[in-house]
């Protein structure tokens, strides 16, 4: 044996070339363009995934679910490519040190933007009728929502220490007031009350999670169905997409196909689903729009009534939703039928009655169609929840005209709405939030952080403030003798209690992207909550402590810091799962942690991967989410790996393993395309070891490997030729669906196998006409 060969890594032939450190952070796929500015690579990868989610429209036959997936999933992809360069801008001024690679930044943006202030819409009958004429049956909020998700203009925000930053991707989420009311149903009558309290105590979330301990929340399965639908849609066009996924010549020099483009969609849906819960106020309204139209005989009176319905007295909103949010009054003027002078007069009257937070919105009533001149397309909602999107897909399935999905309004209307939003957000909502933050910070937080704060258990009793003191003490007195403000029967802190207020402070700061303040606030709260055994609050607070500490721009990343985060996440997970059995909250918590950790670069990439592993262990993920998470873990390890260069700290083998696991999951999900991508990547990683024969070096690994290969019809394992299989993939599909699935289900968990033949929808939908999905997707196989 020759001396040098005695120790593989030592052999001179493999001596690594010196590289700039950040270069090694990049995935090999990007390393060639190491010199390219971040945002370029970023957009590039984004447009890449965009391309791969949807093949070009012309490549599709009309009238396929694929088409709907096309129109649907374009929004995320478009926004992705935009947020790509945006992010790089805002990243510069928020956290210069964060390394940008393989779409991390994009995911960070998705996360940040998903926590947008909610604005409830209370519209009078006539208003909704007016909007209905324009083709927005859902009511006023459906008209405003697409525009609210991203303002076209930069928003300036002052943080608690007086510094101000501009954000280009700020937005608000419009919700129908009925969503608030739906959440509050039964809040009044005692019958359901304690039942709900119980529900709350074991952490179930209204409309978000089933109280029974079903492994997957309703929402979760909805996401699963939606993703599954996308995958089916992809299958149909696998032929022309094969090229996009894997670059053939690249494989030699170690370039790799990217992670599934499905992942950003998954992440977005995961975050869109969050709904009204007591223990975090992100989905509580920050403001509400109270709107009447010029059609109304007695507008002022109508506004008063609507205003009344925004309070508590009318049982309209749940008891745990604070009512101290901003009221914003809008008068909608019918450009076509009404006299503007009357409306302006009315508007002045409004201002006198309701103050400055008023706006006159001038709209045309007639419906606009594409063919009209000065027609403009209504942007698609980026933040539809999975259910909403599925609903949309179904409804679109009735009427098979594609155009139906695209809405148009007049240019003038669009600009009027934009103007309204710009004014409302930058002149009312943001300033309102800023002032709340300042007030609460002075009145509650700083007090609690003061001397007395050190002796929590004692101090908290006296911590009530201002007018709420009575209410707070009264409530706590009523609810329990322990002197805590936590209402054990109902399982929540009344909004005016210091704890609730501080949580709101944290959330406001978060939504205003003042991570530092948010962090310190949550960090302070979690001790209170654990003292009160308010576990859902406790869990949520811990989650946010971790998230914010990862969002705070870091000049350096210390291993120590990440270990601290380890503990916090563990605590959050324990409270969510063991104390409250709220699995899907853990999914969000960990998924965010994974993305943000990964975003921190190589040191944290290991941790990210580890949390991914834990998340999978918990068994709380949907099948597809499981596969995607496995891919994500592989991606984390890839970010520490330079192919063909034995570097200390490389994670080549880990990456290979997780690619294999992902491939296996995809096979079980009966999705050979994704499976092949993972398999090929694993193959590249394993080949690195010994070029002569493909696959892992352990003979005992070959069995599983070979079976996977066979099930994927990858016969010739080494060299790019193996990819030839992709070309005629469509032909193989039914083979690998029927033949190999139960063959492979040797590996599948009990019940896992039935997961694998999920079609577009679950059985209970089967009766409905819209179950046409499954038929269609079958049609492609």
């Amino acid at each position: 044996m020759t001396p040098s060969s005695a120790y593989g890594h030592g052999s001179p032939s493999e001596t690594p070339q010196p590289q700039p450190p950040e270069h090694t952070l990049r995935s090999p796929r990007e390393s060639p363009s190491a010199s390219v500015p971040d945002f370029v690579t970023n957009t590039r990868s984004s447009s890449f995934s965009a391309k791969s989610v949807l093949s070009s429209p012309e490549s599709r036959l009309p009238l396929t679910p694929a088409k709907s997936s096309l129109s649907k999933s374009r929004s995320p992809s478009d926004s992705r490519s935009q947020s790509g360069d945006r992010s790089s801008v805002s990243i510069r001024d928020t956290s210069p040190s964060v390394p940008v690679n393989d779409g991390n930044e994009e995911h960070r943006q998705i996360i940040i933007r998903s926590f947008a202030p909610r604005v409830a819409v209370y519209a009078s009958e006539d208003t909704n009728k007016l909007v209905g004429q324009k083709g927005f049956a859902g009511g006023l909020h459906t008209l405003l929502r697409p525009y609210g998700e991203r303002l076209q203009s930069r928003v300036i925000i002052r943080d608690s220490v007086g510094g101000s930053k501009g954000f280009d991707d700020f937005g608000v989420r419009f919700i129908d007031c009925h969503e608030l009311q739906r959440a509050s149903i039964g809040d009044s009558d005692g019958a359901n009350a304690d039942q709900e309290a119980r529900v709350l105590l074991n952490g179930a979330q209204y409309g978000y999670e089933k109280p029974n301990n079903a492994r997957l929340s309703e929402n979760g399965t909805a996401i699963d169905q939606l993703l599954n639908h996308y995958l089916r849609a992809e299958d149909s066009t696998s032929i022309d997409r094969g090229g996009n996924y894997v670059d053939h010549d690249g494989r030699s020099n170690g370039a790799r196909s990217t992670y599934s483009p499905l992942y950003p969609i998954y992440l977005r849906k995961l975050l869109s689903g969050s709904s009204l819960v007591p223990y975090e106020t992100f989905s509580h309204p920050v403001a509400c729009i109270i709107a009447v139209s010029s059609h109304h005989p007695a507008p002022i009176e109508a506004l008063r009534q609507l205003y009344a319905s925004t309070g508590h007295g009318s049982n309209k909103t749940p008891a745990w939703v604070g009512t101290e949010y901003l009221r914003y009054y809008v008068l909608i003027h019918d450009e076509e039928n009404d006299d503007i002078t009357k409306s302006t007069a009315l508007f002045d009257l409004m201002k006198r009655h309701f103050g400055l937070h008023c706006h006159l919105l001038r709209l045309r009533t007639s419906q606009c169609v594409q063919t009209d001149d000065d027609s403009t397309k209504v942007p698609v909602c980026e933040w539809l929840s999975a259910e909403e999107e599925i609903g949309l897909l179904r409804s679109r399935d009735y009427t098979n005209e594609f155009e139906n999905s695209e809405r148009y309004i007049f240019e003038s209307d669009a600009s009027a709405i934009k103007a309204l939003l710009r004014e409302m957000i930058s002149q009312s909502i943001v300033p309102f939030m800023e002032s709340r933050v300042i007030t609460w910070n002075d009145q509650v937080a700083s007090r609690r952080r003061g001397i007395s704060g050190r002796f929590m258990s004692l101090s908290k009793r006296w911590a009530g403030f201002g007018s709420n003191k009575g209410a707070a003490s009264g409530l706590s007195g009523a609810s329990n003798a322990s002197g805590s403000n936590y209402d054990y029967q109902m399982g929540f802190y009344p909004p005016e209690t210091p704890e609730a207020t501080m949580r709101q402070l944290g959330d406001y700061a978060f939504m205003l992207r003042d991570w530092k303040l948010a962090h310190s606030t949550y960090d302070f709260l979690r001790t209170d909550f654990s003292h009160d055994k308010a576990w859902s609050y406790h869990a949520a607070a811990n989650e946010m402590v971790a998230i914010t500490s990862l969002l705070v721009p870091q000049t350096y990343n210390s291993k120590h810091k990440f270990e601290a985060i380890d503990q916090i996440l563990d605590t959050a997970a324990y409270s969510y799962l063991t104390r409250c059995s709220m699995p899907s909250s853990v999914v969000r918590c960990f998924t965010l942690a994974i993305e943000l950790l990964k975003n921190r670069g190589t040191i944290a990439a290991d941790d990210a991967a580890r949390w991914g592993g834990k998340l999978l262990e918990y068994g709380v993920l949907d099948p597809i989410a499981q596969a995607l998470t496995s891919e994500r873990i592989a991606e984390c390890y890839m970010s520490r790996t330079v192919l063909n260069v034995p570097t200390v700290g490389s994670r080549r083998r880990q990456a290979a393993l997780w690619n294999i696991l992902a491939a296996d999951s995809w096979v079980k999900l009966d999705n050979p395309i994704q499976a092949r991508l993972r398999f090929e990547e694993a193959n590249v990683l394993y080949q690195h070891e010994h070029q002569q024969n493909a696959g892992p070096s352990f003979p005992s690994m070959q069995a599983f490997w070979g079976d996977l290969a066979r099930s994927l019809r990858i016969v010739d394992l080494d060299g790019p030729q193996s990819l030839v299989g992709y070309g005629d993939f469509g032909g193989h599909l039914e083979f690998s669906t029927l033949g190999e699935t139960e063959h492979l289900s040797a590996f599948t968990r009990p019940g896992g196998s039935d997961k694998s033949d999920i079609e577009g929808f679950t059985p209970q939908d089967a009766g409905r006409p819209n179950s046409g999905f499954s038929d269609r997707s079958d049609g492609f196989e």
Partner: protein
Amino acid sequence: MSYYFCIVGTRDQPLFELEFGTSKQGGDGIARFSQEARHMNPFIVHSSLDFVDEMQWTNNQMYLKRVDQFASSHISTFLTPTSTRFMLLHLPHPPNTAPQSTASPNSFPPFTPYTSTPASTTTGSRSSSSSSTSIPNNPTSPQTEEAIRAFFGEVFEVWIKAIMSPFGSVEGKLGSPVFRQRVVAAGKKYL
């Protein structure tokens, strides 16, 4: 506990593989890996080599203790001076399964339900997965750590004897039946 023991050469080639089970506390020394686990074990061990490669330079001991965890499988490593890696994957039988049952721990997927690994607040890289301190049950207890150290120590001695032979090599397969006997014996004795 079920064990998968593998000696890996510096080129990631396996030189010796053995499955066995707990002999302590009335164990019958038989490994009870599910079919899936048996397939995954080499993959898991192989992937743990990443961590071993890294620790090789940060930790100059031969016994690196637990280097990795995958689901409820734990991987302990002994690194010989010649960078030959002794990899021991140990998988506790879930509390509910009696030694005789043919339940499949570590079948993948699914990952073991989280109830079997309560989220603990260990900041270490991997979290404990059982409260019992007995070697057969708890992969993370100090007792287990010491038992494995002893096992590795004995294997190390036998391994040296094997490679001292002019016809043995640190990179070559360890085919001698006597060697196998001795490793088996060491497993019986300590695990």
